């Protein structure tokens, strides 16, 4: 092919049309719609959301799914493991097993049997090693408490030390834990936003004094404040919530203050003020929508930390008084029989972990979604 010099006739000027200039390349999206689209693309965050929805539904309806109640005690059926029909392959077959070693098979067998109060009828003995290889004889005893105690309806999560149904207790505990955490987070949000907003918007001396107060408050470890508050108030849902709120609002106040300070010196606020907007309008139309994302993200991070602190308080003996149970108190009880009956600890710990992971992952996703830098 030879090189050709293009003739001028090949070029035709494009007729620019007026409408074309104003056409927008992509559909206009509000900040929120855009963020939600990004959030929906985030697989981790969506998984977290699904986990939370499932736990929330179970917390609402779980306790009504079987005939047991949370406080119905029956010592004869205490510490029974979980049994779900059809899920035996997952280990939820309602049996307890114990591996014992001994000099002879017989010795191992009798010590394994002794673990289940010598109940030979409902205990199956499997010899794992008869000691012929020079080692100790090992015997596994598998005990079926459901058959032994003649229980026909299953405990899906087993029972606790007093024979109460763990399924009902765990979901009622989840409900209380969630309630405390959500309430604390909501109050934190209100106080924090108001404090931070006022401090930043009015500025000057007000801001100065309000910041000194915060500075001193942050010097106090929240662990100490929470423990002291619980000691003074009588233990209960309200006092735990109050104790959590006392220090919980501070991070929110700081974040809101920082953001409002940054925003209020920006041109669009100045423009709005120049056009004669009132304080009220500036706050409602310009400041609040721009701080909203941060408030939501921070609240999402407050919830799991409130759940954690509530569980932590139960753990050090400052939790809810006995008839009530939260996930924390259930886990605390589980530790008492961890060595022999680990399943009592397992279920509340599992639900607590799912909740914590769900909130953290969703909060991370929201943070990414609200971040305009992540926009494609």
């Amino acid at each position: 092919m030879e090189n050709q010099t293009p003739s001028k006739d090949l070029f035709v000027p494009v007729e620019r049309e007026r409408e074309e200039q104003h056409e927008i390349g992509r559909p206009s999206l509000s900040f929120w719609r855009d963020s939600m689209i990004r959030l929906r693309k985030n697989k981790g965050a969506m998984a977290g959301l699904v986990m939370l929805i499932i736990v929330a539904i179970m917390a609402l309806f779980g306790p009504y799914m079987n005939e047991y109640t949370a406080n119905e005690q029956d010592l004869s059926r205490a510490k029974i493991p979980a049994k779900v029909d059809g899920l035996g392959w997952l280990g939820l077959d309602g049996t307890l097993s114990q591996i014992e070693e001994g000099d002879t098979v017989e010795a191992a067998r009798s010590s394994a049997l002794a673990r289940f109060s010598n109940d030979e009828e409902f205990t199956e003995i499997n010899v794992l090693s008869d000691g012929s290889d020079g080692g100790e004889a090992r015997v596994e005893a598998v005990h079926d408490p459901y058959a032994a105690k003649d229980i026909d309806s299953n405990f899906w999560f087993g029972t606790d030390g007093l024979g109460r149904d763990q399924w009902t207790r765990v979901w009622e505990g989840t409900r209380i834990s969630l309630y405390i955490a959500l309430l604390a987070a909501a109050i934190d949000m209100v106080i924090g936003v108001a404090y931070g907003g006022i401090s930043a918007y009015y500025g000057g001396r007000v801001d100065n004094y309000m910041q000194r107060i915060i500075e001193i408050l942050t010097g106090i470890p929240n662990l100490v404040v929470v423990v002291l508050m619980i000691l003074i108030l009588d233990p209960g849902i309200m006092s735990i919530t109050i104790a959590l709120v006392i220090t919980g609002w501070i991070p929110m106040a700081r974040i809101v203050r920082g953001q409002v300070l940054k925003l209020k010196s920006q041109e669009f606020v100045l423009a709005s003020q120049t056009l004669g907007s009132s304080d009220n309008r500036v706050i409602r139309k310009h400041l609040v929508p721009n701080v909203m994302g941060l408030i939501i993200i921070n609240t999402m991070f407050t919830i799991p930390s409130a759940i954690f602190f509530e569980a932590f308080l139960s753990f050090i003996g400052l939790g809810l008084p006995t008839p009530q149970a939260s996930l924390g108190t259930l886990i605390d009880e589980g530790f008492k029989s961890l060595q022999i009956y680990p399943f009592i600890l397992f279920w509340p710990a599992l639900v607590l972990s799912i909740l914590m992971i769900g909130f953290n992952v969703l909060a991370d996703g929201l943070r990414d979604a609200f971040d305009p830098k992540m926009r494609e």
Partner: protein
Amino acid sequence: MVRYILERLVYMLITLLLIATLTFFLMKLLPGTPLSAADKLSEEQQAIVLEKYGLNDPLPVQYFNYITGLFQGDLGLSFQFDNREVTTILLERMGPSMTLGAQSLILGTIIGVLLGLLAAIYHNGVVDYGSTFIAVIGKSIPSFVFAGILQFYLGVRWGLFPVALWEGWEYTILPTLALAIFPIAIAARYMRTEMLEVLGSDFITTARAKGVNKFGVVFKHGLRNALIPIITIMGPLAVSLMTGTLVIENIFSVPGIGEQFVKSINTNDYPIIMGTTLFFSFLFILIILIIDLLYGLIDPRIRLTEGD
């Protein structure tokens, strides 16, 4: 710089005094006296006991005595253990708590930094996702749940490590691991973000262009710069470990300050509660101060006072 430190120290003192005052009056509001078996004692005996703890004086005098005592390192007498000074009890129990705290902080930060580093180098690869997964799990699941898992599997089921108590170095392994999970998670996340940012900066491109190999770029140019911000998270991490030790020491029966604190809460031993509270606050403020100073010292881009 000196002025800044002095200013901070004054703030620290005010905060501590405030906390001391607050705890003192809060404790006075609480029911209960050291006379747990009061009905068995005659009035005279009761008076003697109250006198011993200085509870007969009017409140302002008690408060004054308490605060002056604080300045002399005297936190009062324990109600629970006869005639034992709170200061001595705390000092005795500091060893195990400090050991656990330091071990888990060091272990956690090292593993976390390595994880974060690997995640940044193999960005968007399997290692990255694995490290992110560990970080999410470690950040979300409370240390006491981890303690339960470790205790049951490594301690009871497989018998690899002692389940509880405090009789030698191997007894520190499980509690240290349980406490280290959180620092691992936080350090890994932070390190990953920092390292990604550093690796994307111009001087890294320059180093690459000059022909420095990948190893040299990451460790010599990248790691040094990414490590600086890690110091800032050490403060909050150390503080969170203080919370963690309360529970972990109880689970593993470690004779540390946290275990004593929980016991004292359950036995209304107010002098110990007050002493520990102050001690925790002191530690908290001190850690934050040290971190702030260290940060300014290490990173020349940050100077605490202008013209310094």
